[in-house]
């Protein structure tokens, strides 16, 4: 810490702070246009000039000058005010004064400063710019006429998003921010540039002209898409969520969001939302009263073990607990599951065996504290973009090493110094086992490892996985495998990341054990910057696991439930928030099962394919309309409060389950916060949390690891068939589950499913980019648009799984790799 004087106030600041940061910490506000907390200092706007006595009263920029001991700083002498006024006058020389029609007005740094410094007349006159406004995409409008060239957009795109869509072009007064070849913006559309723009140069088009900043109510919430657990500020007006707002002080990600978080909110106020309970009468779904619908449902739930439930990991912890209670105590059935039954097995079965707990022994914060990141699948960026940003920053700013094993290349592969080892699809476990073997062979394991339970068995089992043997079937060289092992083991701190989800069948319990083995063998566990982070798919996937919403020994899992529906042993199926017809593997199997089941209850936001088959449809509420807690992938428990009032004819799932419990004669909880107290006392690591405390600040649920080495079984290698390509599925960058189909943003950018293939295969099959091809597998066929890209290796095709219009499960039966043929 250093001592310094700012405006006659004695203050202290950390040694690394700049004058600007030191002043801000101590409540002195220095005006600035080009500074953002997350970005490196820039020093271009020259608004933050201050006088430092030691520098003979010279005016220096506060944002780039580090503090030194004994500095005497003045932040607003008449000279400085004069200089700042002049900077503003110069900026306003070319800035169009169209505040009345600019959406930024009210939240505009330039406007605020102009007001503060009373620059009400301009002694200077010059011509305004006439740059063309970029309307090329539906999400981001770029009006360079309003730009003050603070460079924040270009910097955030480079430093954090690592896309580099924007940059300075031209020089002198003609300088502007542009895209390559002065073309329109064509990027990931995360909207980070919009969030940092101090003026109205970059605006969110979905929100354009919808409301003025000052008329919005700012509601803090938690994003309802992936498991990262990003915090949101929703802009609400007239009970409608109109936009997301930027708050650089929010969450570990400091307000940084991805495309679905920023632009995917429209499902909340969609006019496609269900507004009334529906009951099937004479083959048609007809509007009914809640009383009527719940009565019918309650009657059908009295079936004991012939009742089964599929929940969604987008429900709150409280709802999932209540759902489980309803099933176990009131219905008397232990047949309940979520996420197709396998998407959580890495935690519920894998980590449960390896670590003795169903949670990841690492947090997102460890990414910045480690020395080496070992990422399995480049898709980690697509599934969890904000974690991807953390990886970008770790690699670019901190020089953290990045090794990736994946079946295809991806954006993470482009990071400086990133090594991507592309293996054949489906061979993850073999590769990881070979790495473990290599660690043992090269004596890279920690000394005490042989005392860990299961060591002998593992050492024995790994004999079959020499790098040489594995290299033959996985496509990596033995040297590659040894190199990964060496680098992972020799790093001081190393963190493994891998995504799980319905699209990642191969990331199952076996793989998570194989991953766990690596961290146990090398002792990279239980320390800061070490461990394994299993990135769960949906916003409350980890919560669903923590709440125990997965089958116990006596219950059926999702796949067994579907089988049982088909053979008649399950007569009533209650689906809350899931859309199995689109998101579960093997569409025909799911459809047959849902057709066969006697009674299907669906609680949903939208009339999904599954809801359309139901006997009773109950209109539920989105995350923005209810209170409860979500647990992020690294077990950060966060409280959400209702941002808007719900439609009077919808009920939250909490209310639905409560009503059903009372109809079945049970005791209903008084409120979700009381239920949460019960949860926190019963759930490992949640002790001491209450809604009241979480409302103030989110908390991490502690993870208690009891390491054990488990022998992971590699699945049999997929034999290639001549003329056929190996298909894998997974997430597209802009989507999450099937919910993002109802967000305008994601759908604008990626409106439909596609098949992504390598250039070589495309050339061989004489297929071109944007062609429409029929992809056929043994289970069916599907017409898809073609995307020819450089990232896909030869012999592989990738089809994302989110889309109802072209569901990949029509050609995918849940195998990690499906052999398909493509025809035009």
């Amino acid at each position, binding site marked *: 810490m250093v001592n310094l004087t700012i405006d006659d106030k004695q203050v202290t600041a950390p040694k690394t702070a700049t004058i600007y940061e030191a002043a801000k910490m101590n409540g002195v506000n220095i005006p600035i246009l080009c500074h953002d907390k997350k970005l490196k200092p820039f020093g271009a706007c020259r608004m933050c000039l201050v006088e430092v006595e030691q520098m003979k009263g010279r005016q220096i920029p506060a944002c780039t000058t580090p503090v030194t001991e004994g500095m005497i700083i003045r932040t607003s002498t008449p000279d400085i005010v004069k200089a700042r006024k002049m900077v503003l006058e*110069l900026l306003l020389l070319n800035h169009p004064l169209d505040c009345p029609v600019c959406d930024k007005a009210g939240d505009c740094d330039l406007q605020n400063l102009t007001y503060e410094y009373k620059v009400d007349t301009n002694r200077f006159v010059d011509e305004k710019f006439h740059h063309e406004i970029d309307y090329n995409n539906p999400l981001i409008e770029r009006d360079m006429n309003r730009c003050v060239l603070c460079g924040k957009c270009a910097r955030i795109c480079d430093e954090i998003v690592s896309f580099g869509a924007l940059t300075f072009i031209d020089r002198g007064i003609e300088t502007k921010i542009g895209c390559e070849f002065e073309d329109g913006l064509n990027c990931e559309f995360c909207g980070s540039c919009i969030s940092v723009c101090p003026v109205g140069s970059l605006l969110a088009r979905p929100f354009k002209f919808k409301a003025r900043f000052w008329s919005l109510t700012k509601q803090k919430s938690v994003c309802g898409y992936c498991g990262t657990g990003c915090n949101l500020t929703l802009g609400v007006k007239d009970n409608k969520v109109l936009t997301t707002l930027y708050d650089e002080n929010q969450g570990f990600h400091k307000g940084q969001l991805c495309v679905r978080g920023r632009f995917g909110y429209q499902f909340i106020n969609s006019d496609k939302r269900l507004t009334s309970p529906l009951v099937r009468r004479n083959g048609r779904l007809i509007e009914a009263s809640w009383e009527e619908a719940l009565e019918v449902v309650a009657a059908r739930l009295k079936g004991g073990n012939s009742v089964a439930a599929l929940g969604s990991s987008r429900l709150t912890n409280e709802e999932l607990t209540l759902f489980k209670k309803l099933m176990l105590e009131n219905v008397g059935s232990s047949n309940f599951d979520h996420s197709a039954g396998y998407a959580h097995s890495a935690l519920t079965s894998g980590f449960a065996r390896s670590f003795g707990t169903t949670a990841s022994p690492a947090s997102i914060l460890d990414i910045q504290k480690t020395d080496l990141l070992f990422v399995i699948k480049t898709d980690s960026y697509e599934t969890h973009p904000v974690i991807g940003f953390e990886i970008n920053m770790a690699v670019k700013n901190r020089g953290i090493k990045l090794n990736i094993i994946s079946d295809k290349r991806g954006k993470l592969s482009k990071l400086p110094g990133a090594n991507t080892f592309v293996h054949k699809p489906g061979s993850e476990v073999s590769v990881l086992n070979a790495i473990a073997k290599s660690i043992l062979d090269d004596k890279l394991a920690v000394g005490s490892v042989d005392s860990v339970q299961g060591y002998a068995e593992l050492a024995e089992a790994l004999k079959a996985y020499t790098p040489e043997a594995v290299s033959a079937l996985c496509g990596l060289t033995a040297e590659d495998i040894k190199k990964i092992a060496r680098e992972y083991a020799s790093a001081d701190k190393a963190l493994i990341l891998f995504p799980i989800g319905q699209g990642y069948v191969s990331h199952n319990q076996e793989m998570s054990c194989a991953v766990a083995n690596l961290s146990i063998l090398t002792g990279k566990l239980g320390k800061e910057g070490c461990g394994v982070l299993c990135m769960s798919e949906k916003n409350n996937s980890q919560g669903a696991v923590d709440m125990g919403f997965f089958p116990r020994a006596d219950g059926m899992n999702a796949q067994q439930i579907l089988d049982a529906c088909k053979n008649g042993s399950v007569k009533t199926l209650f689906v809350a928030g899931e859309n199995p017809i689109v998101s579960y593997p093997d569409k025909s199997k799911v459809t047959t099962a849902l057709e066969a089941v006697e009674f299907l209850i669906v609680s949903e936001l939208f009339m999904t394919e599954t809801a359309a088959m139901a006997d009773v449809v109950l209109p539920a509420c989105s995350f923005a309309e209810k209170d409860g807690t979500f647990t992020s992938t690294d077990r950060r428990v966060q409280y959400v409060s209702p941002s808007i009032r719900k439609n009077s004819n919808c009920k939250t799932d909490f209310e639905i389950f409560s009503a059903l419990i009372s109809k079945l004669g049970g005791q209903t909880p008084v409120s979700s916060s009381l239920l949460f107290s019960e949860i926190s006392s019963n759930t490992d690591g949640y002790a001491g949390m209450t809604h009241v405390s979480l409302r103030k600040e989110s908390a991490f649920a502690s993870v208690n690891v009891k390491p054990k080495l488990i022998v992971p079984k590699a699945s049999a290698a997929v034999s290639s068939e001549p003329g056929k390509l190996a298909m894998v599925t997974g997430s597209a960058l802009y989507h999450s589950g099937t919910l993002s189909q109802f967000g305008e943003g994601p759908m604008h950018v990626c409106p439909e499913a596609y098949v992504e293939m390598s250039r070589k295969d495309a050339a061989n099959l004489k297929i071109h980019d944007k062609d429409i091809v029929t992809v056929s597998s043994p289970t069916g066929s599907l017409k898809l648009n073609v995307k020819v890209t450089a990232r896909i290796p030869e012999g592989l095709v990738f089809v994302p799984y989110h889309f109802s219009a072209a569901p990949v499960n029509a050609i995918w039966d849940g195998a990690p790799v499906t052999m398909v043929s493509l025809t035009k």
Partner: protein
Amino acid sequence: MLCFRILFMEQVLFKHNRPGRMTTFDEYRSEGGFVALARALAGMSPDEVQQAVIDSGMRGRGGAGFPTGKKWSFVPRNLPGPRYLICNCDEMEPGTYKDRVLLERNPHLLVEGMALACYALGVQHAFIFIRRGYEQAADNLRLAVAAAHGAGFLGENVRGSGFSLELDIHQSAGRYICGEETALINALEGIRANPRAKPPFPAVKGLWGQPTVVNNVETLANIPSIINGGPAWWKGLAATPEAAGTKLFCISGHVVRPECFELPLGMKLGEIIDGPCGGMRPGSTFKACIPGGASTPYLTKLHWDVPMDFDPVAKAGSRLGTGGIIVFDQSTCMVAATLNLIRFFARESCGWCTPCREGLPFVRHILERIEAGQGQAGDIDILREHVRLLNHAFCALAPGAMGPVDGLLNHFEDELQEHITAQRCPFEGTHS
């Protein structure tokens, strides 16, 4: 007396020059070229070379006049990893052409100087950053580098000393801002040529994050003679005891012989004009001059006896800069001359910081309107305010650009006022 001094003046940079063509490698060698390098490699430690440069009192010839030895001493000594030397040959300042003359005539001097500097700094990879327009100079340099390679003065293990050096010539796309050392480093890295924030200074964190020294062509070309003749001798080449060494002055404007001369540092302005330049053109009388490239404030008749050395010129309210003297006679409209320079700077601003990007075009706008006879009463005050404000810019470009405006306001305010009151340029029609 004056002519005598010039005739017998010792030259170190132009000593080997051949009229009308480039000195060949063999000619240079036969006249004592690369002796300094061989001697340093054989019998001097890197620290001794650096000490010699410090003792010589050499100040950077690129414009700022920062003591070269001191700059070198900022490079951390025992840091692992590579370090770099960059020769700044992005000579784009209007009025300055000394580096071109030097390189077109005798590029070997630079190669030897760089080799010595690299030896002193422990650099194994050096770059010559040359502007695109200097095709001939770049060609000559390529020949010189190849010849030095061939003779074993560059490359692996030079002359068995264990010292290795690679020299790369980078022809830049060319922008005035690349002359700023951090912008030059950015350009060399392949990114947009914007200046970087200092600190960290390049000597600590420069090219690819490694310690980097950026020196001017002329600075580096002087080093062989410092080693050869010794720092004391070299320092004594100057005309005054305070100055050190010789300097290339490149003169343009209304003089009889507008050429590039190597003259002792500290020679008086009047001596230079009346001596080697052959005086003013017939019919011309001296009105003012730019002493060191376009970014320096004007000197006037009052400064006729100012010794052309860094400190005395600074005392006179200007800067020695690069030594590119532009002489104006009585027929020159100083407003027009300043406007001409400001046009250049406004165009060459990189667009990074507000005062420079927005301020320079505005100053140009005001000067244009004054010159066109539409000046307004408050214009002089606005110009004065801009001189102050543009000092707060990110790099030295904007303060430098305001040098001529500052000079205009200090020495020719009455001329400016005349433009405004008369609502026309008093020199209209008399421009030569």
